């Protein structure tokens, strides 16, 4: 089955607050899709729906060909998700945490060790993996979350502010891994505030404001549609962040 994401008229309400309002979007395999938007625009909520954390209030969402509500289990087997600012089990060591998630994905110990070992080396975390997560710095926790999301080689990778807390070396490592992942036909949804990274990394960009998709296309298409403007200026022009500024 071809990995892809199909979002149709997605609405998600929290009580009286409508976080996502009728979002429709397609993301094809092999694509790094950047999700941009001001604070509270609905980026994280969209990622939570895609990752099966929460169900849509209405609309339909399919990830890797499976419905996120009716076939949540199938979706979970095919995705990797890095939430923004998540706390981990402080009492577990990094290795124990990775083992837990590897077990949930039914990875054998040897297979899991081989996959996570390479990632831990790449993120320079291998030496710290037997320490309790409670002793980790913010950057180390973020690296552990990235390894956890990547170790089962997911078809769809959902990243919410993945560079948060990472040192320069780890940032470059992650960008390299994302390119490799996309080249292998995987889908990556990348939510961020950092325009430069999104512009350089992503094949296509979607700008969300107040829960609605206000623009999408490749960075060059967006720049061509708004001559003389940088991506940051286009972002400010299209969203409430620009109005408030």
């Amino acid at each position: 089955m071809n990995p892809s994401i199909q979002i149709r008229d997605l609405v998600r309400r929290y009580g009286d607050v409508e976080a996502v309002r009728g979002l429709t979007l397609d993301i094809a395999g092999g694509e790094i899709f950047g999700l941009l938007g001001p604070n509270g625009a609905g980026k994280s909520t969209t990622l939570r729906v895609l990752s099966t954390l929460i169900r849509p209030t209405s609309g339909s969402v399919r990830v890797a060909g499976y419905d996120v509500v009716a076939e949540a289990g199938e979706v979970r087997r095919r995705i990797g998700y890095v939430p923004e600012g998540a706390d981990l089990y402080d009492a577990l060591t990094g290795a124990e945490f990775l083992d837990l998630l590897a077990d949930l994905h039914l990875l054998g110990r040897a297979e899991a060790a081989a996959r996570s070992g390479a990632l831990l080396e790449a993120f320079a975390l291998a030496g710290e993996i037997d320490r309790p997560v409670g002793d980790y710095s913010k950057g180390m926790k973020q690296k552990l979350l990235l390894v956890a999301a990547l170790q089962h080689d997911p078809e769809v990778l959902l990243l919410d502010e993945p560079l948060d807390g990472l040192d320069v070396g780890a940032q470059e490592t992650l960008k390299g891994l994302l390119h490799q992942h996309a080249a292998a036909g995987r889908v990556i949804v990348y939510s961020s505030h950092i325009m430069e990274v999104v512009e350089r990394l992503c094949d296509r960009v979607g700008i969300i404001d107040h829960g609605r998709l206000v623009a999408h296309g490749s960075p060059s298409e967006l720049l061509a549609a708004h001559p003389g403007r940088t991506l940051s200026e286009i972002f400010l022009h299209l969203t409430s962040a620009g109005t408030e500024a």
Partner: protein
Amino acid sequence: MSSGPEGPVGAAAPRAIPAGSRLTLAGRMARLLGADPAVFVPFMRAYGTIVRRRSRMRLTRGISPKMTGRISPFQVACFFATLIGLGVAAAIAGTHPSLVGVALALTVGSFLVVFAVLFDYLEVLASPDEYRVVAAHPHDAWSVLLAKIFVVGRALVTLSVCYYTPSILAVGIVHHSIVAAGAYALGASLATVAASLAAMLAGIGILARWGRVALLRFLPAIQAVFLVGYFSMSMGRRWMFASGFATGHGLPGWITIAPTVWFAAPLEWATGTAVPATALRAALAVASLLGLVMIGARWGRSGFGETLLAFGSGPRSPAARRQRVGTRRRETRSPWVRDPAVRAFLAMARIHARTDLAFRSQMVVSTLMPAMMFLSPAISMGSRREAAPEITLLLAAAAIGMAIVSITTASSASTKPEALWPLLIAPIERLRYTMALRGILRWSLVPPVVILVGGWYLATAAAVPIHERFARVAGVAIYLDMLVTLQRGLVPEMPFSVRPNRDRRMQWNQVLAMLVGFAIGGGGGFGLFLMWLIRGWGAWAAVAILLFWRFLVEPWTRWRVRRATAALEAV
């Protein structure tokens, strides 16, 4: 398992375990209960590790990990549960009728379970951050919930076995009956199940409905109820027997108001001490258990497992945000406090009172323990009028002294000392900030005891000449004032700058400083003691000694605080 339209996404179908993998006994049991072993077993393993490694109950607090070596915090908790169990076993053996001791044992045991659930295991049962991490991985809520219940239940059973075994033996020995011991064991088991279920459901319910802050506010109240109940029962036993608390061999009917005592019914029947109220207590015990099981089952059927996993994952509603902002606005500075250092201290104390469970618990203990220490003996010796004024004054001084020591120590610690940085970069002199508590304690604790208890002493101690009475009240006031300053010197760290379970190894100079502090404190205590030895105007000489020591403490304390704040900057 499905969930409501606002809830998270539902369960995955159970998956096949990879070929070659064998199901453990726990995995087979989980499958029988409708869970997916491929989810249940990994979570059971992870939660088991978490439970073994963390124990925040007061049972193990303050013990350095280096002292316990390879022993896990859970094993230390089991050790202390056994020690407490030995204590209540002694109470059962030494109390007549022994049912009173049994009532105490069941009450303490039930609170032990409640504390274990709420203080240690609630974050395993319901962690607001967990869902964001695990939800995107293959799982189903029922398997995860069952793993939580299994691990926490196993830990509670182990703790309860450690706690109840000595008292079960004591009951068997006291009644010369294996049947009695078995009946008590049955009651204790049922009490453990009921207390566990009640604590789990109440804790999870509060967390899911009102959030973590509500729970933090609720826990110290439970602790307060326990402390008051425990001290009332253990220190007021003389009063209880004198007032006909227990007549003959049975328990009185009115004690049925205490739910923990309902579970003594099997023992009452087994030992032939049943009264008409025993049947009512047994019925209430069974009904409460059934009720709790039914509530739990209903929550489970209604997709509560998923709701539990997902709580806290959505944004706060605008109404709640408005309410929170309003609360913050109301809590702005008091017009009565002008010193910025004192204001800063009160602000930090307020923040910790709202968010730091360890601080709240310590403050509850710091308030209640001295109060109970003072009230219980004061009430029980009320009949011996001659000694009462003297001893009451000293008891009040001891209780306030205990509160001073306890509050100063509690205010130094914070579970999040790194959050002190706004204060460290604020234009507030650190010495004044550290000394702020001294002023607060000096003016809030010392005058009431001097005015109320001292005034009462002056009026009632007719056997002592009036000038001697004044000397003693003055001596107590000076001693308490000295103690406030001395304790600051003994615990000189900036308030809320020390992690509660830090490694407590001390350098030789710290040991020396402590010895100097104790010597000064001992000198003051000796001065207080002299006042009761020296009769006539000589008592005022003792007051002079106390004053001398009082002024000796001041520079020593300031020197210690200055060094501590300088050391903080060096870090």
